[in-house]
């Protein structure tokens, strides 16, 4: 029982981070129907940003978080203007290749500039662990998960409670209609990239507290983010949150029941089952 409680708790913590990183992906998809295949590599860049803020400027990753979010948001806009906008008029295939190629480029540049070395942020404000009854929780993971909850809450507030958020959602719903209502959809696109990449930046900054940083780190979380988005429903931020936690818990518990090497297989199976029963995802619109 103790073991189950422990694994579920760890699964929830991991799931919240997955959810936050997936939220960024799903937002961009929702607003402009583009899958950002460089998503995991955005995460990698964010983690390096945190690392260098710590290594060079001596900034604790938690304090550097707003800066990392802003930097990634800005990077998102640059990518939108420099890479995405030119291929918007091209075929869907061109759009896929553009982000896919961008991902490979980012990984290659990271390996060239930062070398393939594994880096790790040393002791931070969030070091250590604490126990809740029989369950031991790592402070870094807990703070990262709480941070993910807060940022997700802010994202919800932005989308739900502000005029800009309404405009974003309107663009996602019906681009033409939104334009007729006087919404500058191009600005909304840029904003979606800024907010989406900013979410990834937040996830990266929180992960960097405890996870090793290397050029391929995006691969660890990238695929899971796609599955999270698809499971939750493309374009649904709430769905991504739900799916993230679900995947976190399912993989952890599966690792306990089956051989841990197969724990992701179970999560992918769950995804396949949902896909068959409910193709639009858990909270997606049909």
């Amino acid at each position, binding site marked *: 029982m103790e073991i189950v409680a422990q694994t579920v708790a*760890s699964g929830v913590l991991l799931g919240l981070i997955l959810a936050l990183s997936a939220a960024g992906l799903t937002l961009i998809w929702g607003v402009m129907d583009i899958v950002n295949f460089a998503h995991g590599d955005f995460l990698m860049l964010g983690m390096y940003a945190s690392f260098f803020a710590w290594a060079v400027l001596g900034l604790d990753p938690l304090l550097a978080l707003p800066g990392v979010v802003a930097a990634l948001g800005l990077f998102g806009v640059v990518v939108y203007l420099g890479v995405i906008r030119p291929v918007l008029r091209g075929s869907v295939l061109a759009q896929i290749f553009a982000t896919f190629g961008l991902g490979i480029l980012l990984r290659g540049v990271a390996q060239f500039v930062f070398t393939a070395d*594994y880096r790790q942020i040393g002791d931070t404000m969030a070091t250590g662990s604490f126990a809740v009854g029989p369950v031991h929780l790592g402070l870094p993971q807990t703070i990262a998960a709480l941070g993910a909850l807060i940022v997700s809450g802010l994202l919800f507030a932005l989308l739900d409670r502000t005029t800009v958020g309404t405009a974003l959602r309107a663009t996602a719903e019906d681009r033409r209609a939104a334009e007729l209502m006087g919404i500058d959809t191009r600005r909304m696109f840029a904003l979606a990239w800024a907010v989406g990449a900013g979410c990834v930046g937040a996830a990266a900054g929180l992960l960097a507290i405890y996870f090793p940083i290397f050029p391929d780190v995006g*691969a*660890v979380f990238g695929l899971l983010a796609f599955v999270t988005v698809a499971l939750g429903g493309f374009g649904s931020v709430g769905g991504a949150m739900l799916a993230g936690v679900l995947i*976190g818990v399912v993989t952890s518990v599966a*690792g306990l029941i089956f051989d841990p090497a197969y724990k992701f297989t179970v999560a992918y199976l769950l995804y396949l089952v949902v896909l068959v029963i409910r193709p639009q995802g858990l909270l997606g619109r049909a």
Partner: protein
Amino acid sequence: MRAWLAHLAAVVVIAAACVQPGASPAGEGQPTAAAGVFPKEVAIGAVYPLTGALAPTGVDLKNGIDLAVELINSGRSDFDLPLLKDGGGLRNLGGAKLKVIFADSAGDPAKGQSETERLITSDKVAVMTGAFQSAVTATASQAAERLQVPFVNAESSSPTLVARDFKWFFRSTPDDSMFAENFFQFLDDAAKRFPGQVAKKVVILHTDDLFGSDVNKFVRQFAEKYTYEVVGSVGYKLTAPDLTSEIQRLKASAAPILIEASYLADATLAIRTLKQQDVNFQGVLAMDAGFVDTKFIPNVGKDAEYMLTREVWAKDLGTRKPIVKQVNDLFRSKYGTDMNGSSARAFTGIFVIADAINRARSIDPVKIQEALKQTNIPAPQIVMPWDGIQFDARGQNTKGRGIMVQIQGGEYVTVWPLELASKPLIWPMPEWTKR
């Protein structure tokens, strides 16, 4: 007419096939030294990953080889190494000098093979060495086997390499199965020193790739031989972002000793999780990889203390073995860094080759092959922690072994074999809460 041509072609092909094995390289380009007439230089081919992701290791290997060649050719008699008291060069070949011709495999098995062919056929090297990565060594040694030139491998550890019934392949380094056996020899020795404190139950945590699965396989195999019980094996995916369920399984197994095969990122994650969930062992024994990465101690920090990992070489071997310190000092003065497992083993490989050529009194591959089979270099004359170098029928050095190092005070310290230990083993490792 056409049929006639086809027949001719067939005859030519068959003839070529027949001629190939008969035409020994010695008969073609490599003059067998007649009595008194020796070559001025003996060429050795070396294929290594000199560019690409493994280029830094390639530099280490090349430095080790360059230093060995320089010592042999100059005859530094102040070093107690084979051949060095002979006044420079290979005495039995009229003082002929060694010359190593390097080729770049770029870490690619196909390129390693074609470069080996080129070195043998156009540069007429007498012996080949290389190629660090087991996969490249496999293909490169295949080329040497076909062309009937000895291939001496000094640093690839896949057990499959000597299971191929090759006649021209010799390996001086121990392989991964011998390293797995070392774990239990170490535990047996530790039990003598700490009676009643070394359990006979182990649990294995390993990556689910070839490396990790092999370690799991060999550890299980030798556990049986040494009467240890393997309570469980926990395999995990290399890209797992969280290892909680894996660590929980280790905890549930209640085994007091953990044997681990991990790379850097996952090793770091595993140790952090062990600490956070307060999972304790008497000892953690790692199969090198992530645990000997130059970033391991900096990344893991204080939590790396007391971890044990097998190694092939450590510079503190010099405290018990003067020749190690002497060679390492020279190495550092030349290249600015200490030797490591790669450079030390490549260095040793050149002495194996030079010693064999010298005893063969010839650069005829058949004679060198014969001499390699008779190799018997004693322990004091090598910079490795081995009992010596002697090849069995498979071409494997049977006297090799690894060492166990323990992280003490932020440094790797040799603790086993006991006679080479620079500091005593700390056992059991203190619990997380008592550090």
